[in-house]
């Protein structure tokens, strides 16, 4: 037998991952141009680069002031939520977990509902709702983490159950708030809950982008530890992985990035569930490719959903959460039944 050549397998793997990332980057650019051209003001796909190069006119202002921030927020939030879902599904070794299963959206929505009912926006201005949403999410995260990780040892099943309970309790309390709210407050709460990429505050967009990109970088350094966790906690431990630390850090990172995304966009469900699963089937379950590919995939998905939300009943706009739910759900069912693949994280 010939001596096994280590370099051939290695190069094949790196090549495959390189191709996957490259095609996702190309798709991101395509989605970017499509997203730029979609909207009330008719701008053709082919005109987008020209207008951006000329740097003048109404069209230029529309593209850079109105559409570009939305696309950047779509990449940041879509990427962040999808990354969060991929990481959480990994540490819980459960294919149905997404950032919002763990009470993060419930907590955030409750925070926002409270802020609206107690007229916090009047006091704090534009930052009030994101801040309230983030505080609510943070509270839910701390609750799940502290209760789930007590006794020194992390019990992922406990954490999952507590997350689901936090989610239920906060949504019930929110129902209560809504039943007591005035019609106008009720409208603001519902509008926020359905999610929107229309964020006037550029600081918040930048913050979301920075948080989600840096989470991707940090999570990538844990990707081999996450791979080992796929073998089960005991086996990861035998391979020298600090399993307790990995699970804690990854939980906090995934929740925080989801909390920031929810705070700046409202509840945009389904991205964190659907995209990581599609990526698993298409690019494989190795976290070294899964994490960056999920990030890019989530961004592409949200850009396109937002473009649909803006154009389908123009000049009015549909809530993006509705589009992600319908498009994501149908896409996912079709995909699952076609590929005959099963939901799995292992």
């Amino acid at each position, binding site marked *: 037998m010939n001596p096994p050549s280590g370099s051939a397998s*290695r190069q094949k793997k790196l090549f495959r991952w390189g191709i996957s990332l490259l095609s996702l980057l190309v798709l991101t650019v395509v989605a970017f141009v499509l997203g730029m051209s979609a909207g009330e003001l008719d701008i053709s796909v082919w005109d987008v680069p020209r207008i951006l190069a000329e740097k003048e006119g109404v069209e230029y202002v529309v593209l850079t002031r109105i559409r570009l921030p939305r696309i950047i927020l779509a990449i940041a939030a879509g990427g962040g939520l999808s990354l969060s879902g991929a990481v959480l599904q990994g540490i819980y070794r459960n294919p149905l977990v997404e950032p919002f299963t763990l009470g993060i959206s419930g907590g955030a929505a409750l925070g926002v509902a409270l802020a609206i009912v107690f007229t916090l926006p009047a006091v704090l201005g534009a930052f009030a709702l994101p801040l309230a949403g983030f505080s609510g999410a943070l509270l839910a995260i701390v609750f799940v983490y502290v209760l789930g990780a007590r006794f020194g040892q992390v019990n992922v099943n406990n954490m999952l159950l507590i997350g689901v309970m936090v989610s239920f309790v906060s949504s019930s309390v929110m129902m209560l708030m809504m039943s007591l709210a005035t019609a106008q407050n009720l409208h603001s709460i519902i509008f926020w809950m359905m999610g929107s990429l229309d964020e006037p505050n550029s600081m918040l967009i930048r913050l979301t982008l920075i948080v989600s990109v840096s989470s991707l970088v940090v999570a990538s350094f844990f990707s081999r530890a996450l791979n080992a966790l796929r073998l089960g906690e005991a086996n990861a431990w035998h*391979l020298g992985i600090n399993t307790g630390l990995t699970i804690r850090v990854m939980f906090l990172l995934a929740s925080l990035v989801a909390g920031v995304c929810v705070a700046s966009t409202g509840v945009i469900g389904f991205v964190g569930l659907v995209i990581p699963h599609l990526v698993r089937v298409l690019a494989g379950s190795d976290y070294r490719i899964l994490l960056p590919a999920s990030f890019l995939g989530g961004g592409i998905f949200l850009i396109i959903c937002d473009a649909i939300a803006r154009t389908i009943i123009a000049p009015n706009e549909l809530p993006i959460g509705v589009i992600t739910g319908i498009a994501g759900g149908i896409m996912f069912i079709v995909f699952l039944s076609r590929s005959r693949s099963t939901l799995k994280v292992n």
Partner: protein
Amino acid sequence: MSGLLTVHNFSCGYGDKFVLRDVNLQARHGEISGIIGPNGSGKTTLFRGITGELPARSGEVLLNGRDISQMPYNARARSMAVVAQHVYATDVTVEEYVLMGRLPHRKQFQLFETKEDYEIAHHYMQLTNVYDLRDKLMSKISGGEQQLANIARALTQQPELLLLDEPTSHLDITHQVQILNLIQKLNEEMKLSVLMIIHDLNLAGEYCDYLVMLKDGQPFKQGLPDEVLNYQVIEEGYKTVVVVQPNPVSNKPAVFLVSDKILKQKKQKNRQEESPDQSGGNL
């Protein structure tokens, strides 16, 4: 023949319950040591204590004189590799699975395996006969092949001590012998020290250099297979009547079980004839 692994006054358990109390034992360099004992005697708890999964309540586990709970995680995994009973991750290829054995050797922030990592993994895959399966998914190969891949992954860690938790359970005799012959070969050729939990007393007698029998969370008897696999020790340890005779080929102790019905018939016959049993004196 010095002690590679020393379990010293070791106690551990779950919650408020102690399963092991003041256990002392040693696995020596270059030997295959086996842990035997009835269900519930604390074998798995002891195993999890040795791997460091279960923290010690008192006492310590020393590997080359170093307390494993004080060792850096990677350093522990470089000197001690574990083949556990349950391995998940079914959609990983055999090659990627075995490559995970290089994890404890990675540098901080090292994202990709080096060429050398691949060469080492491929070497052990050939040694364990799973190289040709390298592109198959772990879920698509047989139980025996999975166990070989587990061993290949453990060897890829390049440890001094290999720990195995019932490596032959759920396998047919072909694979049982294949796995244990492989372990014996690794022990002889690579001077790899082995400590395993082993259910089957005959295989324990045939392959192990040293045996520890656990009973109620305590080493009940430890020593050479001939000393431990003695009918009186087994009958006391397992509360079961057995016949022990040397294997005619290997001359290692072999353990036979006798059905209750036959045992009763024998006893009756003996009583009627009122003569001593001639068949070996064990009954």
